[in-house]
């Protein structure tokens, strides 16, 4: 983190201390609002009530499944959609970085589609692929695809010229240049793109499940909302946040690993 600020960095102890103050205020105000009845309990349960509900949901079923089961079906959908975005987006991005004509053809179409919010694909997704697994996958794909494509493309375009020219001089065929020069040199850019892509994909999935799905955490939350069970809604938010966080940490690890050692 850049160091410029009004004051010198705080000591480690001070950071922990101030952080604790912040958290105490946050949870304190929340608990006070709920426990004093200033906000009806039904709409704002206290933190401990949510913790209780969360642990309850780990074993008891709500909307047809326990929380881990809902999470598993959400994660499976996410996995399919994200994998599809990676498998299509990265090769296409690399090819666009190499073949100018492909770039010229795909870019205008891509720019036109990019401004459609991923979630706006929901009606067509439901119409074409149903509301089970296929529909949500299309929406995750719509969210996760652009960063994969853009970062692979950028990585390929920013490959150092002399490397490409050296390969060409040695008579390397285009497909080998793409695989052995462009791909390795784009890896840092691609892994950075994967993180963005996973974040957007996970968030699109949650949106999709709120609207069309009969399983998954999003579905559970909508059911809880209809039943006015605020603690279940917030438990769902926490679960989604946790999984999103774990995905992000995993990809950040990957990114750091790649940056340190390269691909090989």
């Amino acid at each position, binding site marked *: 983190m850049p160091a410029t600020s009004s004051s010198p960095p705080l000591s480690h102890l001070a950071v922990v201390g101030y*952080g604790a103050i912040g958290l105490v205020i946050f949870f304190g105000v929340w608990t006070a609002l709920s426990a004093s009845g200033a906000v009806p309990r039904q709409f704002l349960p206290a933190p401990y009530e949510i913790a209780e509900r969360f642990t309850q949901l780990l074993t008891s079923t709500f909307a047809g499944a326990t929380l881990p089961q809902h999470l598993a079906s959400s994660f499976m959908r996410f996995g399919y959609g994200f994998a599809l975005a990676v498998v299509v987006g990265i090769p296409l991005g690399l090819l666009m970085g190499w073949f100018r004509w492909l770039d010229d053809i795909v870019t205008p179409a891509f720019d036109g589609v990019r401004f*459609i919010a991923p*979630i*706006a694909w929901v*009606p*067509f997704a439901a119409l074409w692929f149903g509301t089970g697994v296929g529909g949500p996958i299309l929406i995750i794909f719509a969210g996760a695809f652009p960063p994969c494509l853009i970062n692979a493309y950028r990585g390929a375009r920013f490959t150092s010229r002399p490397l490409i020219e050296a390969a060409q001089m040695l008579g390397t065929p285009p497909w080998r240049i793409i695989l052995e020069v462009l791909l390795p040199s784009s890896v840092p850019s691609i892994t950075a793109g994967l993180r963005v892509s996973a974040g957007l994909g996970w968030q699109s999935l949650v949106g999709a499940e*709120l609207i069309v799905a009969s399983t998954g955490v999003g579905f559970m939350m909508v059911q809880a909302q209809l039943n006015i069970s605020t603690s279940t809604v917030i438990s769902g938010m926490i679960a989604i*946040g946790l999984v999103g966080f774990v995905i992000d940490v995993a990809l950040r690890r990957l990114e750091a690993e790649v940056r340190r050692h390269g691909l090989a």
Partner: protein
Amino acid sequence: MQIGRRTAFGLLTILVLVLVWYITTTTLGLISPGRFPSPADVWVSTRQLAVTGYANGQLHVHVLHSLWLVVLGFLVAAGTGVPLGLLMGWSRRAEAIINPVFLLIRPIPPLAWIPLAILWLGLGDAAKIMVIWFAAFVPSVINSFTGVRTIEPYIIEAARMLGTRRMRFVREVLVPGAAPMIFTGLRLSLQASWTTLVAAELVGALYGLGRVLNVAQQDIYPGMIFLGMACVAILGWATTRVLAEVEARALPWVKLARA
């Protein structure tokens, strides 16, 4: 020359796509009209929405309603997010206090707030503003924060040495110095505003483009779905352009530095 080639190819691609669209749906009938609309279907839907109305209102009612909510939610988020980011960037103490709470809330995707917003505020406009606020707030804070931290130290020291007063310092050093990053954040905030609004309207609303999409989905009406998506894309594009124009006017020096 570059630009000419790009534009020519772009126009050509779009022309070919429209032709392919027309041929596959209308001439050859390869794609069934129940799955994807033909150009004629979209035209019929456009006339219907513009003239007689659909899903509680005419085209301009839905467009203005969605646009109004996005602009309002975006302004509220920017109005709270940017100052908070600046404060956190400026004061290590504020950063240390706020950061843990921020880190706790940040992993929750904005769309996951929708059920809670509906529980708290119902299906009206207030719930939409709340979700947009959550979505657009985070990028504004993070980028304003980073913007302050990337101001060159010698500029801050020079202002200090000259005894610049606090308000003047904020107005003439802090904000202009962080401005390029602030605008990066605002762009992300704007995109997030559109995504969340459409999602929130799809989940439940009385007016708006998401409402049009939702009703069209229930009616299995591909022409109207297509039109709704096109409207969302055009509005998203147009508001982004407006923001870029504001940025160019507000920060003439950034452009000068690049050229």
